């Protein structure tokens, strides 16, 4: 905080020194910028506080059962968040399962194989992809990906993998899988650009040493370069996960809005962000809006935990990491 240097001079001298410093302007500039910086702190604290207080009624009535029950009935005042938590987590997991191999693969190509000019052009396009607003992904998912999934992808999966419970049951087009696919597209640019930077940071000697030992190009990449950069790659994956968990518009438009848990990924479901977007302005009474704020709190905590996990993981890998001297 704003601590003045300890001076052992008498008080009036200290005051005079302060006046001198104020007159010079530095202290004023420091205090002004400090005030603005504190506003960030203040807003974040206020955000947590308001979510906490705003969900008080729901927290007191349901306690931790809120997280573990799956009954969502605004009419009778029963609120359980499990279907929404399940939907949010499962769609994010699907997104990562698709986006991580694709993204890391693309990052390897851009950092290891592509000529510099091609690599920077591609990276430029991928950064533009990251800038596309989420509602536009939603429109595309709603009009293009839903029919595609309904008519081609889902029937194909059902025919080939239908013996698994995830890929059985009726096909709607809307549902967990479709939401996961659009989330994969949305998180892909984050994985690619951060992983690429991590891979570019790997020293050339690492590659040369592997190649000199007779490794093929792929062996050098996979066994010498990727392990070195794993920290950044994990970071990109967790960032993508946090984005996927909190993503609202595209998921709301394609997840199907059914507050029940289904084993089948073809089935319509719900996500935390989606029910907030759909119901918040229409929620009446005392308890219903509070239950929704409580869901917002759950979503907030979920993203915080993911961020914290990412930090812990990165600390753990740096401690253990033999690749990092």
């Amino acid at each position, binding site marked *: *905080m704003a601590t003045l240097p300890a001076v052992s001079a008498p008080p009036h001298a200290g005051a005079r020194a302060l006046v001198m410093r104020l007159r010079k*302007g*530095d202290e004023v*500039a*420091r205090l002004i*910028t*400090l005030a*603005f*910086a504190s*506003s*960030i702190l203040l*807003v974040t604290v*206020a*955000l947590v506080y308001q979510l906490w207080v705003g969900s008080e009624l729901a927290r007191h009535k349901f306690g931790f059962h809120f997280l573990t029950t799956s009954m969502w009935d605004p009419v009778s005042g029963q609120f359980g968040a499990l279907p929404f938590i399940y939907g949010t987590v499962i769609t994010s997991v699907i997104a990562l399962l698709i986006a991580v191999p*694709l*993204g890391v*693969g*693309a990052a*390897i*190509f851009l950092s*290891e194989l*592509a000529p510099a000019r091609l690599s920077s052009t591609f990276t430029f*396009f*991928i*950064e*533009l*992809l990251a*800038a*596309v*607003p*989420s*509602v*536009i992904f939603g*429109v*595309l998912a709603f*009009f*293009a990906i839903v029919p595609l999934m309904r008519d081609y992808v889902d029937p194909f999966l059902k025919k080939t993998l239908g013996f698994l419970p995830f890929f059985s049951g009726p096909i709607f087009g809307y549902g967990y899988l479709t939401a996961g696919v659009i989330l994969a597209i949305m998180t*892909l640019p984050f994985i690619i650009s951060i992983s690429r930077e991590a891979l570019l940071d790997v020293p050339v000697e690492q590659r040369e040493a592997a190649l000199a030992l007779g490794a*093929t*190009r*792929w*062996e050098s990449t996979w066994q010498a370069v990727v392990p070195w950069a794993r920290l950044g790659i994990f970071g990109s994956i967790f960032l993508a996960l*946090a984005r996927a*968990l*909190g*993503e*609202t518009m595209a998921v709301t*438009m394609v997840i199907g809005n059914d507050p029940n848990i289904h084993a089948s990924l073809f089935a319509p479901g719900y996500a935390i*962000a989606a029910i907030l*977007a759909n119901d*918040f*302005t229409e929620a009446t009474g005392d308890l219903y809006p509070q239950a*929704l*704020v409580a869901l*917002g709190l759950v*979503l*907030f905590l979920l*993203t*915080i935990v993911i*961020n914290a996990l990412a930090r812990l993981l990165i600390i753990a890998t740096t401690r253990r990491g033999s690749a990092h001297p």
Partner: protein
Amino acid sequence: MTLRNRWRQSLSFFMLTLTGICAVVAVSLLFLILGDLFYNGWRSVDWDFFTKLPLPPGETGGGMANAIVGSIEIVLLATIMGLPVGFMAGVYLSEFGGKTFAFLVRYMADLLNGVPSIVIGIFVWIVVVRRYHFSAYAGGIALALILIPITARSTEQFMNAVPQTLREGALALGASKWKTIATVVVPAAYRGIATGMILGVARISGETAPLLFTSLNNQFWGAGLRDQTASLPVMIYSHAMSPYDDWHRQAWAAGLVLLIGVLFANVAARLILSRGIAVQK
């Protein structure tokens, strides 16, 4: 060449080709998106789209004039509120920040940056909307809260990239610290700072979730900034989810206009940065 070596070579070739395919797929996604929006939207982007109000369902025609103006109002409000705060906080973090407090602010800024935008919407709903009404102000505040941490961190980053020797030079000539910052550090980093700001404003222009229950939506011209206000992203959402074909057509057109605007800002920001970087890292 032994069999094993041949296997290793072909595996290498196969995997590397696969990574190339991954990259091509990722990049082609952008062009698929652009192509799809152009194909479905360009016919509907006409004079009416920019000058007329939305019509009730069932009638053909109309436009999104109120949403375009509303979006500009809300983003402008957010920019006026958010950029100065973010910039000053960034200056503090880079130039005045000590250890503990600066770390705390930095951490909180990253936290705020990671908060899902819909949660920001809830916060503003609790603090502003519940007490007053849905308004353009509320929407602007929500977007400003997203803009502040982005601006603060990018400003800090680009000011940190200014070499220490420049600062020392100014201080050695007798300039006070704030004078050094105002006349040496900020001018040296202004391209980067401007780029960060443009990217931040582009990002909030496309945000939908925080506006859903702050500025809400409006089919007509609102009665000023205190009234609920239409915005392009919310209009795209509500029109796309409606069952009417003519509204779908409008949603595509609005999506195309929004995307062109956002991508244009992104390209412009990167051109500013690459056109002779003032700061050598």
